[in-house]
């Protein structure tokens, strides 16, 4: 069992790495596969929006751009109001490209945060506190 919740998918696409890199970083092609409408400011710290086919809206922040090789970003549902991606419980997506004889291997990994954000931790702690309170109440009844 992995130490963190992560999902990995690998596909080999019959296209050279440059074409695939364009498709995974430019808003126009991204809006054809990552979501229905994608905006992205492709630089570390750059922000973006992904409107899904199902009309869910996600915010994203770019973590790392290694041209032609790797794009890493954090994303989270836009309806979650939080000061930082971490507070919003953002998951991390890494898209890596490698040249292989048949074209380009694309490896996508999405990882859930391994530690609760402060806000989520507080909510969980208060759940735990109310659970303890209930136990005390039941025990003293």
């Amino acid at each position, binding site marked *: 069992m992995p130490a963190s919740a992560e999902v990995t998918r690998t596909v080999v696409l019959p296209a050279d790495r440059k074409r695939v890199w364009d498709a995974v970083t430019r808003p126009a092609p991204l809006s054809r596969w990552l979501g229905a409408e994608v905006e992205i400011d492709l630089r570390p710290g750059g922000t973006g929006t992904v409107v899904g086919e199902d009309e869910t809206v996600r915010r994203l922040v770019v973590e790392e751009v290694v041209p032609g090789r790797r794009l890493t970003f954090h994303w989270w549902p836009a309806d979650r109001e939080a000061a930082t991606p971490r507070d919003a419980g953002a998951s991390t997506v890494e898209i890596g490209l490698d040249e292989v004889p048949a074209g380009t291997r694309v490896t996508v990994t999405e990882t859930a945060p391994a530690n609760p954000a402060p806000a*989520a931790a507080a909510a969980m702690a208060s759940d735990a506190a109310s659970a303890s309170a209930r136990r005390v109440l039941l025990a003293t009844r």
Partner: protein
Amino acid sequence: MTTGDPTEVGVVFAALADATRRDVVVHLSSDGPATPTQLAARLPVTRQAVAKHLAALESAGLVAVSREGREARYRFTPEPLADAMSWITDVGLQWDRRLDALRALLGEEAG
């Protein structure tokens, strides 16, 4: 929890990344509720270590505690694990769909 909320999913996996904590969960799920003393008798760890692991599992929502006499009795609560598994499944299906669309897009451009 919804599949759009990966925080608790991550917490569940972090809790289960430890082999002893997995053993504790296996014991509780197969043998039923137990006290830290009973668990320590079945596992190669001290009662204190078991108590620490149980606290970590409790904060991830994987065990629940009830008091019986002087000792706490813990039971396995599987819901967070089911939520974590459905996050894995749902996120995987979403990427399958997206990568199919990416493949179609690149095929289209080539042709």
